[in-house]
């Protein structure tokens, strides 16, 4: 699914990050849920705290204009994880019909992006999971991107479409009394 006029992806290199950049196997540091908040105030009383380091394929959600080198508006970059169908063992996205529903936009928490057919970076369709939002220091993310040598970048307007769905996930409103279904 790679139209020559409106390609979904291009290859990116270096430490210039844009919205839509896909960082494979990116380290994500997660604090423990049972972190003692009171003990944090008295850090000396803590021998050490264990953080979990996971690896996720992530996509940059921060706006490109906020990441311009030398004119950064943010210090941390927002990232969401990417998964392919084989990552789901159960549930809607373990099945083809679930991916079709997601493709049609019926799952607010998910956004599907197309398969990548760029020569050295073939990939199956993936889903962006908005339920998990990570942040990493921008400088760290730049360094990591540099180490990747090459990475895939989601291009406009597809990344704008992703960004729009991301915003929609956080601004959705559940109505207390909904309109009954039309029959």
């Amino acid at each position: 699914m790679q139209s020559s006029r409106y390609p979904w992806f291009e290859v990116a290199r270096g430490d210039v990050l844009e919205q839509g950049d896909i960082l494979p196997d990116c380290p994500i540091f997660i604090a423990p849920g049972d972190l003692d908040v009171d003990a944090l105030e008295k850090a000396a009383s803590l021998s050490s705290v264990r953080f979990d380091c996971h690896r996720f394929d992530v996509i940059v959600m921060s706006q490109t204009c906020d990441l311009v080198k030398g004119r950064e508006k943010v210090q941390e970059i927002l990232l969401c994880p990417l998964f392919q169908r084989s990552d789901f063992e159960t549930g809607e996205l373990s099945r083809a019909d679930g991916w079709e529903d997601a493709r049609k936009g019926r799952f607010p928490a998910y956004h599907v992006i197309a398969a990548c057919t760029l020569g050295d970076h073939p990939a199956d369709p993936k889903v962006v999971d908005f339920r998990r939002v990570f942040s990493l220091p921008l400088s760290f993310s730049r360094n990591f991107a540099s180490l990747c040598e090459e990475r895939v970048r989601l291009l406009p307007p597809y990344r704008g479409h992703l960004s729009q769905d991301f915003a929609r996930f956080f601004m959705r409103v559940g109505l207390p009394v909904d309109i009954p279904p039309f029959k």
Partner: protein
Amino acid sequence: MISTTWGTSFPTSRQEESSSFLDGFLSSLVAIKSAHVPEKIEVGVRSQGLTDAEVDEKKRMATALRLSLADEVYLEDSCITHDLRESQALTSTEISMLALIQSSAGHVSEDLCGVLDAVDWDMVAIPKERKQSTLKVTLRFMGKGKPLPDPDPWT
């Protein structure tokens, strides 16, 4: 001059002329320390429906309350030699607030009462000092992350 152990900024929105004491008082408080990551606590006094006297009282109470949150409050003798406005009697609440300051800081003299009367502002913004400390972290490497279970992806 009243100085506190954390920086304080008092932006005034009023354009009216202020006394030389007021200028000195305000400028002496603008000292946000770069080591701090300030958390602003803004106190706005809404004057709608209140008399001028009630607004003034609320401003003084807000000032006393904010100062009571400081680690220490020092009142230097030099400020009481400035030309103060005619002071008003403090309410029992304001006196209680000042008692809090004295009990916690132990450095406030009774002349603070007169200083509070001389201050007239619409908003007070006080950064809260954040203590810096070092946390030791060990990393547990979990491998490739998995998606969350999706019991209800329609939401």
